[in-house]
């Protein structure tokens, strides 16, 4: 009798344990389902808009070009070879060629110049905005974003009209009497850099403003109080504190600049190519899709390396400071 009671007791214990275990498992399963359910939209978006196009680009870059566009499904590194070497038409030997690296170099240089000038113009602008009374800042922010209301193509055309031989600048200078003949402004590197700067300046100003607006301006006063002059306060206090904004702004200007298509086409006359135009050309007139894909991937790799280098160098410095 006593045994029976005891065994009964034990069995109910076991039942309880089993029930608890089952309940726990159910909860865990539900949590897992919920987690995947929540992550799924993000994964879907990243997959469709990020990873899939990238994979297609990578695959295509290793195929052969078809004569009238498209690809032939044969593995080939021809596209990458073509980037650095030129095939002699007569004996089919490969010679190193600067043509494409030069276009990349030009693009990087133009993007760098654009970024630097955006920073030089954008920093004082953002500083000015951040030091206005809070009510006025909204107005300035609104004015900075105003150009976005118009299409980039239209804005670039407007720049075209300003810069051409009978344009606003030349006519103005002639009217004033500084020059007697129009200056050649359009279809120069200067025009491209100016156009890029104009297009991407807001991308520099906005992150800079965000960083400066958060800054405690008593730190500037503290700098003055501790015998720093204006230049030293800027260099030792303001710029270090605005650094996240400076970095974000430079990245946001540099990356779209280096791959710009419309601006060099219109203001550069398409005579001197930038990477964007080179890539576009491969999918258009040149009908060399693999090479277009390869050029795009080389650009991607270069940007990635630059970003990684930046992240490593700043990350290391910060770690040192904390130690």
């Amino acid at each position, binding site marked *: 009798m006593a045994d029976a009671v005891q065994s009964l007791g034990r069995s109910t214990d076991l039942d309880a344990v089993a029930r608890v275990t089952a309940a726990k498992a159910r909860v865990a399963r539900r949590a897992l389902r919920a987690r995947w359910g929540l992550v799924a939209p993000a994964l879907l978006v990243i997959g469709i808009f990020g990873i899939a196009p990238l994979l297609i680009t990578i695959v295509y870059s290793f195929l052969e070009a078809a004569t009238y566009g498209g690809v032939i499904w044969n593995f080939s590194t021809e596209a990458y070879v073509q980037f650095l070497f030129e095939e002699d038409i007569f004996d089919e030997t490969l010679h190193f060629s600067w043509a494409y690296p030069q276009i990349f170099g030009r693009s990087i240089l133009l993007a760098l110049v654009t970024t630097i000038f955006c920073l030089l113009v954008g920093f004082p602008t953002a500083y000015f905005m951040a030091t206005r009374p809070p009510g006025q800042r909204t107005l300035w922010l609104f004015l900075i974003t105003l150009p976005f209301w118009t299409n980039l193509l239209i804005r670039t055309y407007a720049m075209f009209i300003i810069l051409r031989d009978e344009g606003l600048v030349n006519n103005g200078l002639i009217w004033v009497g500084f020059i007697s003949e129009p200056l050649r402004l359009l279809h120069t590197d200067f025009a491209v850099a100016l156009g890029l700067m104009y297009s991407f300046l807001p991308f520099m100003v906005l992150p800079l403003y965000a960083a400066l607006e958060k800054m*405690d301006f*008593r*730190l500037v*006063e*503290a*700098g*003055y*109080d*501790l*015998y*720093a*002059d204006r230049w*030293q306060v800027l260099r*030792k*206090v303001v710029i*270090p*504190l605005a650094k996240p904004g400076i970095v974000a702004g430079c990245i946001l200007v540099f990356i779209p600049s280096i791959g710009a298509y419309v601006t060099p086409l219109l203001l550069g006359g398409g005579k001197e190519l930038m990477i964007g135009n080179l890539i576009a050309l491969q999918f258009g007139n040149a009908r060399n899709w693999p090479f277009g894909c390869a050029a795009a991937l080389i650009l991607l790799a270069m940007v990635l390396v630059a970003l990684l280098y930046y992240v490593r160098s700043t990350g290391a410095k910060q770690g040192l*400071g*904390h*130690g």
Partner: protein
Amino acid sequence: MSEANAIEALGLTKVFGSGADEVTALNQVSLEIRQNEFFTLLGPSGCGKTTLLRLIAGFEMPTAGDILLNGQSVVDLAPNERPVNTVFQSYALFPHMSVADNVAFGLEMRGIGKAEVASTVEEMLSLVQLDHLASRRPAQLSGGQQQRVALARALANHPQVLLLDEPLSALDLKLRQGMRSELKALQQRTGITFVFVTHDQEEALTMSDRIAVMSHGEVQQLGGPTDIYEQPMNRFVADFIGDTNFVMAEVLARENGLLRCRGDGGLEVLASAAGDPAPGDRVTLAIRPEKVQLSAEGHGAEVAEATYLGTDTSYQLRLAEDLALDVRVQNRMDGGTAFEPGQSVAISVPPGAARALLD
């Protein structure tokens, strides 16, 4: 030169804004701050004390008037050209620099050699007992430690005058009380003139050599802590510093340099006078709660409320229909005379303990 005042303000006026938004933060303020003294600007917020400090530091330009530092006018000098340093209310430590770099900042900006900077930083950090935290970032320190870094950063430059803008207001009570004596000791050890801004009267009374009580952009009274507390010159000062009962009264006569006054509710006292009230004038009597003596033998007032405060008991007395008086009596070891609510008591105010104010 040696006996020139550390700071002299001459008719300092500061007006912010213009037109309808015009605000006069300082109105014709003149005062002298002596060498090596702990001088406090005390007043409620908006009284102009911080504006005065910022004018001395050079962050604001006066609308009118002059500021002399050791006898030399400094109004035309930028903040970085003035031999004064500031401890800011929120410390304003540079977040991107280590504690040591913060302290070294002023020295480096003045182009002092590396070796000397290093030894001064070390000296200053040990002065404020933070040598072990030299390589930390400000964000890794507690409020009290940040406060000390701010002090060390300012003192490292051996300023002629150290300006402190409510430096203790961000600390909790216990820490604040500890820092008071530390600040005072630091001032005495370094011999630097401290100009301390606060709205906390207890801070002002415990630390200062002299206090300027300010309100509405003007100095209401300037004097030592005892003067300010015992001999307030007007109602604002009497009200702002400590607890005070105000009783309207009429001057009856002069007696031995004191004034015999009869207050509302029949209270008759011998009061010291602020200014020169004549017999027949209406005055306000300021009576500190702890100066009033109570006795069970007598009448005149009734205990309305008794609140035990530990060291003291606070009584609210009713003298007349609309006249109440707060009185504080220290709790003696034997329990003293505890008065009960409803009990009748007699009040006496010792000669000179009350203050007759004209406004």
